[in-house]
């Protein structure tokens, strides 16, 4: 038995492929396809859900997530700056905030906001306000850590160069460090956006009017409305993918195009003799 390394690798790959194919075949055989089709891929409720699932459900999910992410981004940036501030009270507050809101389930924030805000402050928040505020509160905690990492990944010399030019600290932060940090963390930030998109479904705990329903709510309502199995949830799931997959593609594109990743073309050929040097040579 003298198998070469290459043969052994090929054999191992072949076995893996055979096992995988086997599992698929067994699943195809044992699954009750008519039942699956009836409850998950039933065309009738699918047709009935259009176009509201897009015009209302998808639209609301995008709206809640967009504002949640936007305010989460602002809050997260502020928290990140507090986290690296020299004033200790800022650092403590930011650390406390981040640990707390990363540590509790997001659904608790939705409940606290949905029922607590009116009790505590007499506020009557709309569904959009509740959902995007809750997402912003939770998102800021995650985003803060991402942005902090980005800020710290910008080489120290950048800040030094900006300060040496006479930029005040805030100006150097705003024009030099933060833009570079954002470039670095764009891919993980897109991840946060995807997570928030899915977390927007948690608004169901508060309840909402039909016109404010987002995807998950529409899916759940569809189940009771059409009495045709789980198909409405499948439709909602596909709609989530319509949001999240393009976001992922966008993130990958940006990652490829980031300046740190760009091919470093070097211009070996010296520039035309500088007028200064020729003047004195």
């Amino acid at each position: 038995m003298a198998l070469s390394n290459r043969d052994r690798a090929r054999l191992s790959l072949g076995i893996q492929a055979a096992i995988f194919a086997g599992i698929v075949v067994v699943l195809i055989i044992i699954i009750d396809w008519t039942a699956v089709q009836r409850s998950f891929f039933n065309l009738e409720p699918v047709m009935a859900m259009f176009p509201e699932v897009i015009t209302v459900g998808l639209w609301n999910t995008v709206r809640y997530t967009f504002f949640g992410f936007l305010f989460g981004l602002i809050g997260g940036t502020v928290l990140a700056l507090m986290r690296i501030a020299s004033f200790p009270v800022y650092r403590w507050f930011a650390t406390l905030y981040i640990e707390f809101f990363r540590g509790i389930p997001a659904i608790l924030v939705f409940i606290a906001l949905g029922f607590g805000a009116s009790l505590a402050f007499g506020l009557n928040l709309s569904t959009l306000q509740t959902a995007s505020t809750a997402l912003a509160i939770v998102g800021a905690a995650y985003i803060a850590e991402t942005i902090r990492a980005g800020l710290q990944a910008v080489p120290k010399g950048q800040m030094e160069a900006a300060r040496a030019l006479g930029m005040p600290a805030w100006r150097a932060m705003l024009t030099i460090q933060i833009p570079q940090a954002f470039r670095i963390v764009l891919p993980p930030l897109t991840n946060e956006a995807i997570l928030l998109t899915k977390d927007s479904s948690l608004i169901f705990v508060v309840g909402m009017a039909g016109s404010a329903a987002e995807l998950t709510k529409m899916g759940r309502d569809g189940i009771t409305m059409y009495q045709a199995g789980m198909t409405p949830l499948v439709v909602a799931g596909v709609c989530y993918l319509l949001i999240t997959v393009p976001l992922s593609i966008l993130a990958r594109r940006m990652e490829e195009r980031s300046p740190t990743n760009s091919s470093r073309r070097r211009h070996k050929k010296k520039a035309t003799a500088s007028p200064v040097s020729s003047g004195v040579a």
Partner: protein
Amino acid sequence: MSEVSGNPGQMITDPAGVVIDGLHKSFGDVEVLKGIDMTVSPGQVVCLIGASGSGKSTLLRCVNRLEDPDAGRITVGQFEATHEDVNLDAMRRQIGMVFQQFNLFPHLSVLENCTITPRRVLKHSKDAAEEEALHHLELVGLKHLADRRPAQLSGGQQQRVAIARALTMQPSLMLFDEPTSALDPETVGEVLSIMRDLARAGMTMLVVTHEMGFAREVADRVVFLDNGLVVEEGPAHQVIGAPTQPRTQDFLRRVLNPLGE
């Protein structure tokens, strides 16, 4: 200065002097500067030489307060750098600094690197800032690369942009922190020649360098630092050509003749 530059329009009109008095600086338990006294007259070029760890860079960084001295006094032109009420940003606008690692802003074009501070801090108009920046980029021979990103430039070109960026603030003092140490050998010359031109135009310059040839040709004075103290200083030909202190002799022997022949 012995010679006038070929670009009279570039004559430095208002060079600043530097006075350093009893400067001390520690990092943790390590005392890096142990009482430095030195003076740079307006328009003078002073090269700081010495082994790594001798405190040259720290000394340079104390002058524009990138490091905070523990004790001692520094004045730069009319600014008292070590005074607690000094307007650091205003002072730094008078002091150009060139770093070993260039520290160009990678997210901005070459031109934007040179215009961002005049525009955002000095509130110059876009047109005025660009005209000024292009003028300085032309002086360093890189006007044609104004739209490139720093990453697309060679090390020598990046360092020349860094010099142009500093000059657009019209400084009256330039600090160079080992400006050629990170360069490929074949690009060292283009940076040194620009520094020489700047010196001849009358700029006050404080240069940390290992380029003994440059120091010998351009410096009015050379200061040798060892272990946080000024060991020897004087005219370049004297300190580099005929050092009197054993430690200076030993350092120069190793730098000029690394194989010890």
